[in-house]
């Protein structure tokens, strides 16, 4: 009884603070009450087993209920828990699907891999045809534009988005850790940031990457602005969505919407900020609170309001229109020097030394 009381105190003290943290910026009036410890699974509870402590279980069937009436960690919960020596967790306790019943990676060829199409007889055969290893990408970007894909820094193709900005693309890949980059030019030839995703590719399987939201483009006519001036900030994004403009690490957030062609523009009153250098960036928001999905941020743009400033220099060190391995090799040539006669300077941030800062800027601007 005493224990139950403690749980109730815990719940009443913990739930409001959780709700506040999780829904910053959105009003939420949902309130639920449940009693943990009555052996009844109430709303908001996953289980209710007095006496169980929620310790890690290697099986779904053996999972333990925690003191908060939630299941403790277990192999098969779909959450990778390396602290419990899980190498993978595909949400089940099956062998032969590349992730074993005990959440260890199964080597390629060791399992049946779900095997489609039974077909042909074939006696035994020790090797199983695993089929192609493919990454399938589904997402949204700027309408009727070419969406470009980089796999491990190398361009692997492009596809044209439809009039709603939707696109789908598939590419062969090697199993192992892969980094997929996606970028596009908007209708005014402004380049988006490259949206990167790093994940593991399973051999002989189709890895689906869903819900990609290409960050919007962002442009301003001039980066040097007089204090108090109103400036027009514009760009392109996913059509008919909310667009947030964040100023200085989200200290100020302005909002607008994109039109049917994905275009957006916003007039920003610079009297809202101090005379200094400021940074603006934008992101797309889809859905209504509390169920919203945000894209990652666009390229950051510096605004020099009432102060002298110089925008970042080009990372395209050989002036061929791309930032790739060639520019990296030129940067390496001038490494730890002042950049010598390089033009544009290999010392991209002009701090007098070609170093990791310049390397980082070059990687940011990478086009492949």
């Amino acid at each position, binding site marked *: 009884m005493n224990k139950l009381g403690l749980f109730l105190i815990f719940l009443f003290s913990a739930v409001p603070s959780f709700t506040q943290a999780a829904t910053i910026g959105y009003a939420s009036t949902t309130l639920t009450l449940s009693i943990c410890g009555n052996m009844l699974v109430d709303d908001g509870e996953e289980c209710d087993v007095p006496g169980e402590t929620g310790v890690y279980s290697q099986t779904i069937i053996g999972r333990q209920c925690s003191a908060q009436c939630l299941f403790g960690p277990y192999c098969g919960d779909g959450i990778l828990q390396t602290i419990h020596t899980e190498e993978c*967790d595909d949400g089940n306790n099956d062998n032969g699907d590349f992730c074993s019943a005990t959440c260890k990676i199964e080597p390629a060829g060791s399992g049946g891999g779900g095997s489609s199409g039974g077909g042909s007889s074939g006696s035994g055969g020790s090797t199983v045809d695993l089929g192609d290893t493919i990454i399938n990408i589904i997402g949204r970007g700027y309408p009727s534009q070419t969406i470009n894909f*980089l796999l*491990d820094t190398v361009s692997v193709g492009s596809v044209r988005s439809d009039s709603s900005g939707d696109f789908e693309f598939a590419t062969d890949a090697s199993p192992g850790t892969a980094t997929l980059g996606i970028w596009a030019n908007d209708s005014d030839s402004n380049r988006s940031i490259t949206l990167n995703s790093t994940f*593991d590719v399973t051999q002989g399987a189709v890895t689906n990457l869903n819900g990609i939201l290409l960050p919007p483009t962002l442009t301003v006519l001039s980066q040097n602005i007089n204090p108090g001036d109103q400036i027009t900030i514009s760009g392109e994004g996913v059509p008919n969505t909310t667009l947030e403009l964040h100023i200085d690490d989200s200290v100020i957030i302005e909002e607008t919407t994109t039109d049917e062609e994905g275009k957006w523009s916003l007039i920003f009153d610079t009297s809202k900020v101090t005379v200094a250098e400021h940074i603006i960036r934008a992101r797309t928001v889809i859905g209504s609170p509390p169920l919203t999905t945000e894209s990652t941020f666009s390229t950051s743009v510096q605004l020099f309001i009432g102060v002298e400033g110089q925008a970042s220099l080009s990372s395209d060190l050989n002036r061929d229109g791309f930032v790739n391995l060639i520019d*990296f*090799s030129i940067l390496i040539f001038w490494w730890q020097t002042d950049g010598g006669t*390089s033009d544009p300077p290999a010392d991209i941030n002009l701090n007098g030394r070609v170093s990791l*800062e310049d*390397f*980082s800027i070059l990687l940011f601007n990478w086009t492949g």
Partner: protein
Amino acid sequence: MKRFSALFLFAVFVLVSLPTVTSAASLYIDPGMSSLNRGDSISMKVRLDTDEEAGECVNAADVVLTYSDNIEPVDISIGSSIFNMWVEKPTINKVDRTITFAGGIPNGYCGRVIGDPRLSNILTEIIFRSPGFTVGGSDSTTAVIEFTDASTAYLNDGRGTKAKLTTFGSLIELSSLPSNIPINPWKEQVTADDIPPEEFSILLQKDEKAFSRKWYIIFNTSDKQTGIDHYEVIEEPLAQFGSFKWGRADAPWLVQRSPYILNDQSLNSVIRVKAIDKAGNEYIATIIPDETNRSYSTNQILTVFVSASSVLILLTIIFLLYRLYRSRKMTAVSNEGKEGEINTEDDDTQNQDYTQTNNEVNDYDQHI
């Protein structure tokens, strides 16, 4: 008991301060705690986490690790690294007991993709071994691997901003007992790797400012199993004039790294680059320079000069011999003409001489 409590405190420290609860990028070693029998090996993964809530992406890092003198690093793998570009490949300095590397990922690493079956955030994998038997040195039963303050990470923000960074080292409990069956996961991994490095191509370049305006090549690939060990380059002479080849036909493979300035600046060579992984699997990429870029090499000029000189000398000799022959013939003809005139005048004298000679022969016969 004292050792145990130290271990316990460290465990508590590691568990409490796991990277998942930090609000900055973090570098950590996985596993944070482990134990090793004498002679056994362990793979320690250096991992990177970003502050996903803040939308933080990291694109470069410079890492310096130190390790205790009672443990020995034996190899380093970048096979599962999220870094594609290396300014400094991982290097072990056994004198200073440091491991250093600096690299990056174009467009940044932005955290775990939901549903990724593995934790794809490895920067490098270091294989440590507990010495079988040691003479002298530290007799401590715990080994520590930790990051130095020189370790830095850079945000993917296009300005080369240093990320706020927290680091978490690793503690290994060393047993004085040898294991019954030596454990060496790295050896197993290397033995199992029969997949060559990823396909790649060679870029032939010349820059107006860098590399002393010389032709150079760029190459880069990855191996997603044990990782690239090194690259080798060969410049094979192009066949000319049938079977004749310029330069050395037995040109050796040279261990090189990208960018590589070509020895044969005339581009009359087939250039091959061999990528070799830790298991010895290799992939060879080849480039034959375009004819329009080729020029005459020193060898070519020398050979043409020698050939032309030889032909010239031969022609001169033939000409001189001919002249000599002609001159002699002319002399002979001229002499014959003169002799004809003399003969008509001195016929009697010649007949007398002939008679005298015949008499001398007769005297000799008689004497015999």
